[in-house]
């Protein structure tokens, strides 16, 4: 038991801090100090992560596992949440007064995501995801009096409830078939054979759908643009990196060769969904007049590239998680830039003349957008490149072509934003001020995009440990 508690030390830190925030918020502590407490908790949690490494490989009677994958993903979750908290500190909250509650929910989301990535039992996975979902619904409607925000919360809730319901049904089928929900045990039972195949495939599909919702894969992406648009910028940024990474971590753990607990052969579906996701994401982003919606659809398309990696064997898994790490920073950077340069809805016109009003930040924003588009020598290019290498290695030439065609299409809308910033002049020449915590977010993301672009080994060495 001590061993198990040792393992969830970071989660315990976050829980304690979260409860404290809730109380402090009620007693009227201001927004800034609350944010700093949350940030501090995340930093402490991050640095206590290495202490969890020496606990045994299975904790809480096999509910959670202590492997390198969960370690890395937990670190990533903490980084993503930390960036979101930092962004929230600098964000200008117009009509919002429950800061304690807000940071509490962010921390709970972090805890549930950390549990999700280390879970090795379908029930545990379900519980963790459900916690994450409920917290997310509340976060999406942070602006309680704003129509867009409440709509976002409601939409997210309807889609989310449906998809977790579907997933739960799938899990129940698995239990009915195999009599266990523990992933290693499922693996053993499947290896022994003698299971009714069609039911198992159906169960797998239902579970897949639940994960796909979190990863915002087509056709489970309908909510993305509306929810991101209605949610406050920091929340939208958080949704685009945190829960999405969780969706992929789950897909990798349960479906794709790591080791595959449910039956193999999901690559075909992954290829199909990857092509659909990137294509529909990109073409939907094309005509968006709001940069927030544009970035939302861009994040859908990016999910397609990541899924393409998952469909391509061990090399592809490495590429996909390389992509996820890079994506966390470049997407966060793009969202943060857009939020600080513009307003809540971020119409495209509001970026006019940004090249003159805020030359430095316009440049930084352009770098993030170009990295998302996959322009060398930025990190986003290497991420796409490794995915392509893996996809071609497994001879999925059609998928490779789709990735390539899509990245050309994607350039069009990313460049459109850059074009507006540099080619067009605005009547408004007021300089733009970015809060210090916003600058820190951008500095972290920018250095990651540049650093990983030049020294990708930093990540690759870690990934080599996971997917040996």
């Amino acid at each position, binding site marked *: 038991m001590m061993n198990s508690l040792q393992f969830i030390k970071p989660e315990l830190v976050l829980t304690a801090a979260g409860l404290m925030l809730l109380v402090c918020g009620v007693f009227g502590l201001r927004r800034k100090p609350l944010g700093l407490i949350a940030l501090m908790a995340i930093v402490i949690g991050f640095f206590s992560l290495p202490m969890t490494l020496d606990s045994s490989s299975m904790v809480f009677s096999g509910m959670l596992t202590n492997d390198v994958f969960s370690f890395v993903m937990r670190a990533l979750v903490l980084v993503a949440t930390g960036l979101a908290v930092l962004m929230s500190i600098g964000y200008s909250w117009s009509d919002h007064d429950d800061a304690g509650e807000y940071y509490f929910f962010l921390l709970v989301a972090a805890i549930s995501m950390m549990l999700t990535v280390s879970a090795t039992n379908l029930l545990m996975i379900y519980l963790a995801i459900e916690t994450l979902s409920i917290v997310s619904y509340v976060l999406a409607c942070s602006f309680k009096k704003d129509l867009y925000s409440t709509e976002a919360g409601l939409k997210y809730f309807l889609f989310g409830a449906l998809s977790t319901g579907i997933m739960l049904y799938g899990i129940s089928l698995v239990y009915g078939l195999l009599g266990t929900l523990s992933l290693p045990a499922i693996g053993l039972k499947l290896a022994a054979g003698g299971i009714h195949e069609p039911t198992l495939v159906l169960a797998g599909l239902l579970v897949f759908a639940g994960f796909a919702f979190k990863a915002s894969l087509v056709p489970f992406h309908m909510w993305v643009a509306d929810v991101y648009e209605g949610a406050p910028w920091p929340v939208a940024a958080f949704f685009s990196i945190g829960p999405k990474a969780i969706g992929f971590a789950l897909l990798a753990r349960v479906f794709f060769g790591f080791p595959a607990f449910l039956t193999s052969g999901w690559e075909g579906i992954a290829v199909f969904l990857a092509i659909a996701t990137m294509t529909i994401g990109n073409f939907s982003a094309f005509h968006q007049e709001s940069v927030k919606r544009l970035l939302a659809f861009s994040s859908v398309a990016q999910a397609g590239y990541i899924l393409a990696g998952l469909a391509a064997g061990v090399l592809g898994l490495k590429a996909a998680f390389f992509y996820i790490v890079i994506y966390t920073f470049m997407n966060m950077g793009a969202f943060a830039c857009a939020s600080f340069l513009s307003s809540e809805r971020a119409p495209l016109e509001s970026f006019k003349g940004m090249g003159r009003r805020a030359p430095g930040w316009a440049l930084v924003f352009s770098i993030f957008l170009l990295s998302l588009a996959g322009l060398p020598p930025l990190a986003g290019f290497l991420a796409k*490149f490794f995915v392509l290498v893996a996809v071609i290695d497994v001879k999925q030439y059609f998928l490779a072509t789709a990735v*390539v065609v899509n990245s050309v299409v994607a350039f069009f809308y990313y460049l459109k934003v850059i074009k507006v910033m540099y080619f067009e002049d605005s009547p408004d020449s007021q300089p733009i001020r970015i809060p210090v915590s916003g600058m820190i977010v951008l500095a972290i993301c920018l250095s990651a995009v540049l650093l990983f672009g030049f020294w990708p080994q930093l990540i*690759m060495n870690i990934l080599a440990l996971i997917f040996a």
Partner: protein
Amino acid sequence: MPYLLTTIIFLPLLGALVVALIPGNCDKIIRMTAIAFNAAVLMVVGVLCLLFDRTSGSMQFTETHPWIPQAGIHYTVGVDGISLALVFLTALLGFLACLASNTIKSRIKEYFIVYQILMTGMLGTFLALDLVVFYIFWETVLIPMFFLIGIWGGPRREYAAWKFFFYTLAGSVVMLLAIIGIYFLSTPHTFNMLELAYSSPLLSRTLQAILFLMFFFAFAIKVPVFPFHTWLPDAHVEAPTPVSVILAGVLLKMGTYGLFRVCVPFFPEAVAMFAWSLGVLGAVNLIYGACAAFAQTDFKKLIAYSSVSHMGFVLLGLAAMNSTGFNGSILEMFNHGIITGAMFLLVGVVYERSHTREFSAFGGLASTMPRYAFFLTFMALASLGLPGLSGFVGEFLSLAGIFITFPKLAIISAIGLIAVVVLFLVMVKKVLWGKPKEGVVWSDMSMGEVAVIMPLLILVLIVGFYPDAILDFQKHTVDVLVKTL
């Protein structure tokens, strides 16, 4: 000298950083810094030319540093006879176009930052010996060019910038697929261009042909080969003068350089298989470009189409598949850079004064602008291939080469050459001769403008009278290349 090539590649980038640190309102200092950095690059390239061993046909000054060893990607650079001339051309035109950038009046800081990044991309492309590194530099050129055309260009600049960007991008992603494909087909897997150059015959003819076509698609758009040329007139016409110089002088050479660096050594059988088609494309480029140029009423568009025409010679020399043709082709790349670069500078000179490029606004300039008349006539003669000037040598060698392999094509092209001659003579007539227009009083070229074109004129003369000045550097490399066929 270790790190000589790395210095050449990244010196402009350092310049971009330095310029970025200078406050935006110090126009003069920014200009001087950019010019100083380009002069420094030119000097280092000069040192490179002096140290270059002309008796060797192999790669020199190679550097290899592991970059992403897990994926077999190494930062490898090197220079041989084919790339040396182009590196020199890039450094020279980069410096001269930087001098000629005093016509840029707005957003000067941004202009020079982007310009310097462009220089790094171009130099890197010519020096890289690892396919991934090559691709990265190749793509690095795109965004700066997009901005240079899109911000500082003419009235239809946005359209031209988009068109340029997407044509080239479409080509380069196909190249990316081919790069990954060839990586997996080579044993052991490698991105190293030198190793791939020797292992190529291991591939089957079909595979060679497919990969060749994929690479060719990317390079053909850049050259540009008919029918992928339509981005070129738009981009050239809208780009500001110094950018046109770089675009015509250097960027087009990236395509033909790619053909020589990648297509010929990697897929010799495929190139031999497609040699006839390449020759036909060359002849079409030559004749179509000249005819299309003929129909233009815009001075700059005319030069742009004449570039298409001249790139036909490069293709013809390549299709010849012998050392004469290759030598001619590579020399023609260099010559075209010098001559067309000068031509665009000359168009810029009258554009600065008249703010139009329509031929109807010109005429009789010979009497009012004698210096200008001299330079324009000189460059037109060089361009149409007058013996004694540099253009003749490259064109002659290309035609001589293709005559050995495909005599019919050589004859057709030689007849097509007449169109080029007529084209330039008519151009000279429209601009310089006849009666001066009423009320047109333009000052003759200033000493500054003369100083920018003068080095190009001297080079045209040197190469014209003593072609070995350039051929000496490249002929051993060409011999090695021909041996692999």
